[in-house]
């Protein structure tokens, strides 16, 4: 079986024939049925038929951990995010809650980020927007882009959106950024000359040494990884993957990674928001 996969792959590298994603259903807290696989959005339908959450490529125990908030280690960080949501900081004497109310009122935000901000004339990630509010609404210090405090806040904002479909806009004012991100996705970087697509489009379902390759979706971010026992942000993950091609990486928060995030997010349009998810 494995041999056959290899031989067939060599001749048809474009689409994997045996994408071994585990057949399972994710129901959160025995309540919310999550969309973890669905038809690919039109913009990528020529490359991939079905988009699949990284959840399907992890082991049974890891999958079970994510299904129950009491077992999901990422939920501790959501609580920390909630504390910070309600905490007054900065020169204006305000907390996030002062203006936005209950964190649950943000349920429609995560699914549409990164999003074009009209006034600023730029595509913003959730991290950028959080820091914009801290700096310009609260008079507080910015949080480090991949810091623990920032991940706590993005975990909170993801958690209140769980079950809603990712739905980032790729047209209109976002289209130039989206195109730039697409180019980065297919660029074969580093001394190993591998692109995101080499591993996450042409080979998902296959093993690369000890790792079971997923589609590299970001609907589950931030992810709690058993490997480093903390929350991992999207750009930290991108950085690790680029580094592994023996390339010079881009910086978290850079224009390149913002564009790449918009593009990768759009490859998950239709999947449920899962963050904070559990991965190994």
């Amino acid at each position, binding site marked *: 079986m494995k041999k056959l996969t*290899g031989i067939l792959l060599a001749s048809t*590298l474009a689409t994997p024939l045996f994408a071994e994603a585990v057949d399972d259903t994710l129901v959160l807290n025995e309540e919310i049925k999550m969309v973890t696989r669905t038809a690919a959005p039109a913009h990528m339908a020529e490359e991939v038929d079905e988009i699949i959450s990284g959840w399907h490529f992890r082991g049974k125990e890891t999958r079970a951990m994510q299904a129950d908030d009491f077992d999901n280690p990422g939920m501790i960080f959501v609580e920390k995010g909630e504390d910070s949501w309600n905490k007054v900081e900065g020169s204006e004497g305000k907390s996030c809650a002062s203006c936005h109310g209950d964190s649950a009122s943000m349920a429609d935000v995560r699914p549409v980020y990164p999003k074009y901000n009209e006034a600023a004339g730029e595509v913003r990630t959730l991290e950028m927007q959080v820091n914009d509010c801290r700096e310009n609404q609260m008079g507080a210090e910015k949080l480090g882009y991949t810091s623990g405090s920032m991940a706590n806040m993005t975990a909170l904002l993801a958690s209140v959106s769980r079950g809603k479909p990712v739905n980032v806009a790729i047209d209109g004012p976002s289209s130039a950024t989206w195109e730039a991100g697409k180019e980065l996705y297919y660029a074969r970087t*580093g*001394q190993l000359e591998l692109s995101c697509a*080499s591993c996450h489009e042409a080979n998902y379902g296959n093993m690369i*040494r000890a790792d079971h390759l997923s589609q590299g979706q970001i609907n589950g971010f931030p992810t709690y990884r058993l490997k480093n026992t903390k929350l991992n942000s999207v750009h930290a993950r991108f950085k690790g993957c680029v580094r592994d091609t023996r*390339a010079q*990486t881009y910086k978290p928060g850079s224009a390149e990674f913002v564009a790449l995030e918009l593009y990768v997010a759009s490859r998950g349009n239709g999947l449920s928001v899962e963050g904070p998810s559990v991965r190994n």
Partner: protein
Amino acid sequence: MKRNLLTIMVLAASTLGVNAADIEPSKVVYADGAVEASLSGAAGDASSGQKIVGSKKLGNCVACHQIDALADIPFQGEIGPPLDGAADRWSVAELRGIVSNAKMMFDESLMPSFYKTEGFIRPGKAYTGKAADDTFAPLLSAQQIEDVVAYLATLKE
């Protein structure tokens, strides 16, 4: 004085695994993806080649290929075809070409080019994420390529 300079140069070269007799990566001649002449001018050592193929720090070929003869190495990958019987399918010159720069044999191949130093997008300094510096060298030295080829030549079914 001249002599000193020469010694220094040889020393510097040998730390990178470069040998005076080596054919430089940019000078390797490919014919239909195959390379006739030994890259180091010397014969390969199959047992050293076996270590390189299995080692995560060296060739790490098993990250992408399965090899039944190396069944004791855990976690073999599925990105490329199993290498069992490679010597039945390919001549030594073809194997040398594939290992040196597989893109000459297979258009757009996902297999890294192990004996190449030019034409990369954002090459890094190994796995640090930083930019490449003057220690940048091919993934395998000429002699390491020869050793790997000698090992692959033993893979018959």
